[in-house]
């Protein structure tokens, strides 16, 4: 024991980016997922810089150009052009914006609402808990495709409506997860110890509850994002999402569908691939996150 006052290093606030980095290097599937998801986000953010053409620019002279690897294709339009001569690659790049917007904001709204409801239900308990959970069950029991169709036909087609709708309908999942975690955490020894020390509620929430909610909610959000991107593509395909003047993978797929067997298959194949790849990458990432954030696995490693 030393007599002179020592100073100590409390370390990083979370368990360290370097550790996460080390963990992902061990899991190739997770790494692929992470790289693809990052690629998707970068594509969406820098779409104007990355896209070789204006996605809306029509050029009838270049219409129906095949992709570069087919006969008659050129590097001018690597993935070919549609019937109006719009560049498929540029449209896919811009289409990523719709997908990322829906996925990100939809999940953000769902997390926010779910966290709020889940925290109140878990912490207050009693009758309020019962009421909130009944509400959550009610929302979950509404067939939301019907709601989407009603909303789209009444309020019109807009990205905003889709995002709001996805956010609200997915929020019960987050509310349930949050409530479950809160019920578990509030019985945890470290929360009891903090209460015994006289910690106030905001401090308990900030230090002990929230940091331990991040893992499960982030994992769930990744899976939900992937689902929302899928559903948005589906709604676009049905003409219920963004207006046709905004390129999205779903409406590209829809317009390409008619020429799938009439000599222009790339019009539907490439947006289809984009959707599939996005779903795959997010699920890979989500699986990996679930694995490393699972407390049982963490304990086994500890």
């Amino acid at each position, binding site marked *: *024991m*030393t*007599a002179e*006052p*020592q*100073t*100590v*290093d*409390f*370390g*990083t*606030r*979370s*368990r360290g980016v370097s550790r996460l980095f080390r963990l992902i290097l061990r899991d190739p599937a997770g790494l692929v997922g992470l790289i693809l998801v990052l690629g998707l986000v970068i594509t969406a953010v820098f779409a104007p810089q990355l896209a070789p053409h204006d996605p809306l620019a029509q050029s009838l002279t270049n219409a129906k150009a095949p992709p570069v690897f087919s006969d008659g294709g050129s590097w001018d339009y690597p993935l070919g052009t549609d019937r109006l001569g719009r560049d498929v690659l540029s449209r896919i790049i811009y289409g990523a914006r719709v997908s990322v917007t829906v996925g990100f904001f939809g999940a953000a709204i769902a997390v926010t609402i779910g966290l709020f409801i889940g925290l109140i239900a878990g912490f207050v308990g009693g009758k309020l808990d019962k009421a909130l959970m009944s509400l959550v069950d009610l929302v979950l029991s509404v067939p939301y495709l019907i709601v989407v169709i009603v909303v789209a036909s009444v309020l019109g087609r807009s990205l905003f409506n889709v995002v709001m709708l996805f956010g609200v309908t997915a929020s019960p999942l987050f509310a349930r997860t949050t409530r479950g975690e809160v019920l578990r955490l509030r019985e*945890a*020894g*470290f929360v*009891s*110890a*903090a*209460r*015994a*020390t*006289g*910690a*106030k509620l905001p*401090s308990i929430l900030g*230090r*002990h509850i929230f*940091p*331990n909610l991040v893992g499960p909610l982030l994992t769930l959000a990744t899976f939900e994002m992937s689902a929302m991107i899928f559903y948005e593509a589906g709604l676009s395909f049905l003409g219920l999402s963004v207006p046709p003047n905004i390129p999205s993978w779903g409406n590209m797929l829809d317009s390409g569908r008619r020429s799938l067997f009439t000599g222009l298959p790339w019009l539907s194949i490439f947006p289809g691939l984009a959707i599939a790849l996005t779903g795959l990458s997010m699920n890979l990432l989500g699986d990996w996150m679930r694995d490393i954030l699972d*407390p049982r696995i*963490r*304990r086994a*490693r*500890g």
Partner: protein
Amino acid sequence: MTTTERPAAPGPANEVLVRVDRLAKHYRGRSGRLFGGDATDIQAVNGVSFEIHRGETLGLVGESGCGKSTTGRTLLRLEEPTSGAVWFDGIELSTLDGESMRMIRKRMQVVFQDSADSLNPRMSTGRTIAEPLHIYEMGTDAEIKAKVADLMSLVGLNPEWAKRFPHEFSGGQRQRINIARALAIDPDFIVLDEPISALDVSIQAQVINLLADLQERLGLTYLFIAHDLAMVRHISDRIAVMYLGRIVETADSNALFEEPLHPYTQALISAVPLADPKKERTRIPIVLHGEVPSPGKLPPGCVFHPRCPQAVELCREEVPEFREFTPGRFVACHLVDEFGSHIVERTGL
């Protein structure tokens, strides 16, 4: 040590620091029926009374479900008592408002059994130990860091480990972190809720020695809750034995082991295997029959009578009073006479 050193045990000897009076904690339970089931009360703690003197260790023993941990939690006001009162240093806790209660909490701390569950997996050791200091805003960042380093040295941890996370430590080390956190704000009193039950034998001894050293140096008062009787005897000055939410016997450690008066205490002590094959071969355990009844359906009379090898008619009808027989020796049993000896033994009943 810069900040944690304090004079040992101020105030007169035998000064009562904690007084618990007829403390009870009942939970609302439900019967198995789906609709309109009768709400039965689970009587986890049922009128428990004891005193803890400044600087001493009171051991609280009993088997799982006897209510010993609930007693500790209710005493600390982690759970609201159903009835009864707790005095800490002469102050009745239920009279306190939020802020005064917070100030009292500063002087009472707790260490739980599950060292992993007691530590936030996302907080470094340093931050964990510093948390109570931050709550009471005790010192600048630099002062807090110095104090954390002191505390870590005090409990036998390398201060350089402050940036490590709980999963990087062994169970014994994690329990040292829990103890350091409990000591951070210089408490007078610590509830130790099965602090060594989850540890390996060789590590248990380390932690017990640490707790004994800390008590001596800092003049701490302990409530040591455990089911390992040998350890409890080793560390406690006095012991209270609980059965089904009640204290059945309180005595000085040695007196309790040498001459247990309550039939349950006798059975409990006789059931403990001895780490010595020769003595172990001659030990004759009093094997209790049956199971501990549910705290939702307490038997009438003495709660121990259905399993008591000595029970008489009176035990089935009347709840025995918790009486002081000799100074400091309390027993709740009809079969112990006013001289503190067994009626059964004496009369051969």
